[in-house]
């Protein structure tokens, strides 16, 4: 995009209006651009906007001037991306007292993740601690590339695909072992330890025991006047043993009626 030869639509976004006017002049001077050629649209307080009030693919150049250390949030990048024409450019100007390289790289990375390409960064000669990060909106339309350009041959086994030769094939990193259907983990041994459960393939009868216990219906008497030999039943599931008849119920006080589950997710359907 040759900005010097034709009028282009420029959008300037900033979070500080007064700062922007002075900065724009400095920036355009330093970039040797004739500020009279451009008649930019200026949007201020962009950080509070969810959407930019522009059509998609409308703007050739977007300049974001960040007053403070806050840089555009990702939803704003997405909006900028939308309003840019394919091939259009975004430049983010900012200043930072330290770690400039890190800050520039971080912005560049976020731009790449937002879909921009050809990111690079530079320092401004004329203004101390001021830098810029540039990136382009790719000029091919996204999402249309999966209709294949060539007519397929009748034998579909020959298929055209993009050969990404500069990246290795990641599937080659897996071994035969890795590709086999994974073994589901063996459930622990039958040893009765501190854990409560019987194993899936229980042969010692513990599973039967557990099942019997679960089928124990609590009697009304137990609900109205709960007693506990161990003293733990009333404390709640966190303290109950695996065979506790009150398992699953909320905590209660001995001798007081047990309230049945007061689960706030009871559906009102």
């Amino acid at each position, binding site marked *: 995009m040759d900005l010097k030869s034709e009028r282009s639509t420029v959008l300037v976004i900033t979070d500080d209006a007064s700062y922007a006017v002075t900065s724009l002049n400095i920036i355009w001077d330093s970039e040797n651009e004739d500020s009279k050629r451009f008649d930019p649209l200026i949007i201020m307080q962009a950080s509070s906007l969810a959407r930019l009030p522009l059509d998609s693919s409308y703007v050739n150049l977007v300049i974001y001037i960040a007053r403070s250390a806050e840089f555009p949030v990702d*939803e704003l990048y997405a909006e900028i991306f939308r309003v840019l024409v394919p091939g259009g450019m975004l430049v983010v100007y900012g200043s930072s007292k330290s770690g400039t390289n890190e800050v520039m790289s971080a912005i560049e990375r976020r731009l790449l993740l937002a879909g921009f390409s050809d990111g690079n960064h530079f320092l401004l000669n004329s203004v101390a601690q001021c830098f810029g990060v540039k990136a382009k909106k790719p000029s091919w339309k996204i999402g249309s590339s999966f209709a294949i350009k060539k007519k397929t041959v009748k034998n579909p086994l020959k*298929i055209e695909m993009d050969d990404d030769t*500069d990246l*290795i094939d*990641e599937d080659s990193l897996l071994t035969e072992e890795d590709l086999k259907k*994974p073994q589901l*983990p063996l459930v622990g041994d039958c040893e009765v330890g*501190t854990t409560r459960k019987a194993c899936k393939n229980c042969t010692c009868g513990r599973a039967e025991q557990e099942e019997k216990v679960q089928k124990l219906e609590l009697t009304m008497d137990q609900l109205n006047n709960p007693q506990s030999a161990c003293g733990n039943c009333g404390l709640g599931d966190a303290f109950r043993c695996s065979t506790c008849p009150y398992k699953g119920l909320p905590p209660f006080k001995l001798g007081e009626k047990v309230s049945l589950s007061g689960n706030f*997710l009871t559906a009102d359907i």
Partner: protein
Amino acid sequence: MEMKSKQLLILYATQTGNALDVAERVAREADRRACRVLIRSIDEYDASSLPAVDTVIFVVSTTGQGDTPDSMKGFWRFLLQRNLGNHWLEGVHYAVFGLGDSGYQKYNFVAKKLDKRLSDLGATAVIERGLGDDQHPSGYEAALDPWMSSLWSGLNEIKPDFFPEGPDFLVPIEELIGQPKFQVTYHNIDNMDSQLSTTTDFKYLQMQIGRARSMSSGKVPHEKSKPDAFLKMVKNLPLTKASHEKDVRHFEFEFVSQVIQYEVGDILEVLPSQNSAAVDSFIQRCNLDPESFITVHPREMENHLLDNSLTALDVPIKLRTFVELTMDVASASPRRYFFEVMSFFATAEHEKERLQYFASPEGRDDLYQYNQKERRTVLEVLEDFPSVQMPFEWLVQLVPPLKNRAFSISSSPLAHPNQVHLTVDVVSWTTPFKRKRWGLCSTWLASLVPEERIYIPVWFHKGLLPPPPPSLPLVLIGPGTGCAPFRGFVEERAVQSQSSTVAPTLFFFGCRNKHNDFLYNDLWLSHSQNDGVLSEAKGGGFYTAFSRDQPQKVYVQHKMQEQSQRIWNLLGEGAAIYVAGSSTKMPSDVMVALEEIISKESGAPRESATRWLRSLEKAGKYHVEAWS
């Protein structure tokens, strides 16, 4: 001058917060051993700096389809570059811990590939990779405990400099609590919110939700805090016959705020409302003042980069609103660390003991039984340990964040302008202790009545099913609620066919019983007759598998086998394959069926068929959206 001891780098790639949880635990354990640590999300780290690192620990999750988390895509692409050679990481030591689910074919693929690639690039492994498995009775913690043990001893052996206090130095866990990640500031404001509290002011609602969610601990860096739009429900219809088995609903919504232009196949994210009484209960239990105004900021620490976008938010929010919008008090279960921190704040001895036990490796399995398997909520846990009084900062950090729920949109904007439709399974289940649980979001949506005009905050984003152009032949496989995005596809094609020719569409649907859960049966049938887009007359087809209507099980893959020739012909015309649904097995069963079909119809051996399907995937013509 004291020489600063070496710093261990921990990089994590998290999708749902598990890998972050593990990374933070490794960091805490390092801290206990006086080992200095720097912890970063992998997308905040410049891969080109790796060769200069002494020792790096990777904690990486694998998503259901075997992919890297979003935050790792750039980094991984960088590592795959051929021209890095095999000496690029010489001198760098590393260890990998992966989080995955062995119920999926591509179990922990990300960790496995990363481990191999790092080694191929010349780096040296300190210990063997650890693989956490959701299928294990006590989840990923089971693999983490022994792996971490080996890590410390392995690291001590080759790099004792990391442990300036010596190999046996260990701060007892009871003494180490550190500072919470967040700080909460209380503000003195009189009636700030009241003048703007009209609920029809969407700008205000949007700002409020945006503010709360960006302050929340659950914020994922690339997620938008402010909702894209607000919807109101206009229809709430059951799609299944009334029974205790299944309750699937058809919801229709209209935009009440600005209209968002979406496409078929897109995802709608919904912020669910929490039960008001539950929120009140939580606030009361934790001795909080619901009416106070607060701001929440990360506490500045070396290990947590200050999120730039947060510093702009100085507008206070009501505590109750913050809890309501960001802290899941009555649905999600807390993690192990919640119990560990609770133990510090328990004043009753038996509670303290029990909590410490739950947080220890010995108590891990029992914790899993009590907490994860029972889907114990924060409110329930606090009720079971009444002596615990946790400061609000810790609650903000450790109460599970209220998460948006994502749904595949089931409408086409061409067919239904200004509307969004969803097909939602209202989930409920019984826990091992026989407690009934319901899905938070699906239950809330199902309870909404159009007349109530409740406003629903939503976000739109692309899913894994790109909208097909009208000229692309399609093979669609969507059993159960998997049919949702394809309802949009079919409706859109029907509209497009009125003005131009559209390519044929084959659709395979499956459910349990023709008369119980045959979702949208009238719709599919109408499009498969009278030269509709699914009609055989137009080169398409609609085939159904009712798994429980006969003694033997019949699934979509069986129906696909019956139509193998049709599928093969369509593939020959350049068709794309789309698979959607809620099952761990279905996508791989479908893939196996396709391999068989291709092999049978082309005469080529199975291996060729498998390779061909993989290249179809790489060419962007095989899409799977599977949810659990």
